């Protein structure tokens, strides 16, 4: 049953059939798995937010989130309020603010629409944490973070993550040895001006003992990812400044 596979008509038919089969296969897979994937992403967001405020299962130098079966309960226990902040420092409550897609909000701001800024207020051991989600660009793709601040905008904890940074280099922004350096760093100077935190090369302070230099030590071989982290802190966290000014 030799088919003449060189004929144009056969080639076109084959191409059409192939597209139909593969296309429907992919569509079917994507559609049937969508609910589970969305659920996973929702739990991950909760884990990340809790991680930033110190609710995690870290031991030694390991990085462990609160487990997925406990996360929903812990989230409602520790996160007291979810707000949507605007550029003038006003805010309103929204119990699903953590589902806001920061990427979409950034796109909105680009088109001249108002950007909603989610902010989560958590309480743990009598301390209040203000956790803001931010997003920026690394070397290959998106990077994002959840930054837990206190009233003075001093960093209490961070969680960084990335979509596709180079393993072993830029991808290490989600490792403890990088993230822990941010704790205690200040965003504002004594006059209340926003300075940001720069990821700086030069090995000035490898143990990161100096907490008021607005700098943390960079990762070797990940200059552009590090620059992306500095830029994202500068551009996105700054938007929350009016809100924090109103707090005082």
């Amino acid at each position: 049953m030799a088919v003449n596979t060189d004929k144009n008509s056969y080639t076109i038919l084959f191409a059409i059939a192939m597209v139909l089969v593969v296309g429907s296969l992919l569509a079917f897979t994507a559609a049937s798995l969508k609910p589970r994937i969305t659920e996973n992403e929702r739990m991950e967001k909760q884990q990340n937010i809790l991680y930033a405020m110190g609710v995690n299962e870290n031991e030694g130098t390991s990085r462990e989130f609160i487990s997925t079966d406990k996360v929903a309960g812990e989230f409602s226990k520790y996160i007291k309020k979810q707000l949507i902040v605007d550029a003038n420092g006003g805010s309103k409550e929204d119990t699903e603010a953590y589902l806001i897609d920061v990427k979409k909000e950034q796109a909105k701001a680009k088109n001249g629409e108002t950007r909603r800024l989610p902010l989560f207020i958590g309480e743990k051991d009598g301390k209040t944490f203000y956790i803001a989600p931010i997003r920026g660009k690394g070397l290959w793709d998106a990077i994002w973070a959840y930054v837990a601040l206190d009233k003075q905008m001093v960093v209490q904890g961070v969680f960084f993550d990335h979509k596709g940074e180079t393993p072993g280099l830029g991808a290490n922004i989600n490792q403890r040895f990088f993230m822990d350096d941010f704790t205690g760093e200040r965003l504002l100077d004594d006059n209340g001006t926003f300075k940001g935190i720069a990821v700086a090369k030069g090995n000035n302070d490898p143990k990161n003992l100096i907490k008021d230099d607005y700098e943390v030590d960079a990762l070797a071989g990940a200059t552009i990812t590090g620059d992306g982290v500095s830029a994202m802190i500068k551009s996105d966290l700054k938007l929350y400044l009016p809100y924090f000014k109103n707090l005082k």
Partner: protein
Amino acid sequence: MGLLSKKDAKLITDPLADNNPITIQVLGICSALAITAELKASLVMGIAVMFVLGIGNVVISLMRNIIPSKIRIIVQLIVVAALVIIVDQVLKAFQYELSKTLAVFVGLIITNCIIMGRFEAFALANGPWKSFLDGIGNALGYAVILLIVGFFRELLGSGTLFGVPVLGDPIELTGVYKYGYENNGFMLMPPMALIVVGLIIWVQRSRNKALIED
């Protein structure tokens, strides 16, 4: 080997050394540069490629008599891309943590020239079982080189293996760092992967003169 005939076994063992996809066929170099800064990534990439190449080779081999030769490259590309995306989606739904580790490799697998190379050179001309063995063999050969390169880059560049510090702590100055040893940050840069691969090729060819071309 009782399970495999001599000829079949050769399909697995050949790519490990004398017909290695990286050092002899010089395929898949790009991903070898990109992800070998640490051993764990090398291992994950090796396994992922083995999976895709094994199944992809079988699929292409089954279709080899009906693929129109004019568009065969596109057909091969679609098969790889579809396979990788399906695997990625399934992992996202059932093994979310693992899928996050793999995310960056998805694009790298689709563009990995070993896969297209083996489809084109082997699966299009051979039966499914042979193609499967060829896929596994080549993926193993690829993984071996990745692991060797990853071992040296992580050890000399970061002083760790699989993320575990083996040379002491560079900041607290314990272990070998006490004597003035320093990590070579240059090892973390992609060019050093190329140099390490070059050294492997050199060692391999000086041990087996038959591999040297005129």
